[in-house]
């Protein structure tokens, strides 16, 4: 007789546990404002990433198309996987000396692991994180970027 009651009590307990779970899902069903979802492609215009978000490495330029990069190549040595390549050029200074400046700062986004060592190691704060995150392209070669803009030069007060 005891096992008979135990059998039905088990069934009752089982149904109760299922209903407890259903209560949770039911609560969210009737209070949809508690569920947080982002309508991502639709909210593209209003979507703003955090300031520190690591989207890609950029080289900020000012309004005169000038940057801080001296072309020293410390970021290239700091990078763990050869993402950055700094190509240097030599120019003749007015006083007859030759001076090394940056020719191209090549950044391969497809190889970057976003560790941030280049930005941390840069002695002149020429690199920064950009907030752009939609990096999908149809051709792999488009992921190789030149960070210094064409015709750009180094900010004068750094040279002095």
């Amino acid at each position, binding site marked *: 007789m005891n096992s008979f009651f135990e059998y039905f009590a088990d069934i009752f307990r089982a149904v109760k546990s*299922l209903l407890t*779970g259903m209560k949770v899902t039911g609560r969210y069903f009737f209070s949809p404002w508690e569920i947080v979802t982002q309508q991502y492609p639709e909210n593209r215009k209003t979507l703003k990433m*955090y300031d520190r978000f690591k989207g890609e490495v950029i080289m900020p330029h000012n309004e005169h198309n000038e940057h801080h990069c001296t072309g020293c190549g410390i970021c290239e040595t*700091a990078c*763990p996987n050869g993402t950055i390549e700094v190509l240097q050029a030599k120019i003749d200074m007015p006083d007859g000396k030759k001076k090394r400046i940056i020719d191209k700062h090549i950044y391969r986004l497809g190889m970057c692991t976003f560790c941030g*060592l280049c930005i941390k190691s840069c002695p002149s704060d020429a690199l920064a994180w950009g907030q752009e995150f939609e990096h999908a392209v149809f051709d792999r070669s488009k992921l190789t970027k030149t960070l210094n803009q064409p015709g750009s030069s180094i900010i004068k007060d750094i040279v002095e």
Partner: protein
Amino acid sequence: MKEIINLPVKNVEEEEYHINMGPQHPSTHGVLRLVVSLKGEIVKSLKPHCGYIHRGIEKMCEKDTYPQIIHLTDRMDYLSAHINNHAVCMLVEKALEVEVPERVKYIRTIVDELNRIASHQLWWCSFGMDMGGLTCFFYGLRDREKILDIFEESFGSRLLHSYYTPGGLMMDIHPNFQKNVKAFIKYFRKKIKDYDELLTGNIIMQLRTRGIGVLSKEDAISYGITGPSARASGFACDVRKHDPYGVYDKVDFKEILGTTGDTLERYMMRMHEMHESMKIIEQLIDNIPEGDYAAKMKAVIKLPAGEYFQRVEAARGELGVYVVSDGNKSPYRMKFRSPNFSNLSVLDHLSRGCKIADLIAIGASLDYVIPDIDR
């Protein structure tokens, strides 16, 4: 070809047969291949085949400098990336005898515990999904999103942070960090009740896990199981308690030990651990001392020649880092003792004699991350 033709056809029902579970199976949580030997529905033996996601991280470390190694350890156990970073950073600091500022220790401990909660939340999601409850997956990820938002605001990325450096941190915490963490703790204390109502008390889940895959304390020790899976068997192995690092010696938390060692107990251990982690964070979050966020380090870090070992408690068990240095700026040999690899070795022992559906439950309760197994 000849052997296949000569197979005795009449005894097919009596015979053992092998099936491949994985590499593309949702319940292996990655690319792990289990060759399961079955008789009917009963598992006779099991052979894990690793190496599908082997990237040679230990070998790659040998050409990298010590700050560069950090970003590779992120990619081993990606769900406890901060804790992996912590192990390497502490090893370098121990070898160079650098004392990191107190502020760094506090922040590291808080972030580690947040990472542990996030990892256990994802484990809870996938555990529910393996049991057939897709709802768990959505609810768990919803709460994990809160932690990831805190990480994203403060460290810039959601999964692979590379936030610790030898000697300190990459950058200071965000001004909103403390406020957000306190808000999260308040939020999650409420939401963790949902977890219990939804899955812990569920009769189907209870019947599928109670008494399944029982691991004794002796076996746990001899197989080298660590983490919540071993504590479920009563093996006190919490590195945070027995070999404290960070500021774990200053906080009050319990090392919860189980008794039965079955799948349900392993589940309960992780649920309790989330509560304990929240307790640790609450004790620390208001008391972060002022100071520098990094100690002064040399530009090129060279460890003195010798052998070094450091262990931490990752979300799945004990992570050990072993370095042989010859005095150069990169290690001569680097070895990671990953918790998942040892935890995987017990799967054959646990699943013998179980049904194949129980194998899924046991695997889910051991909570393996495949990139950590293969490295």
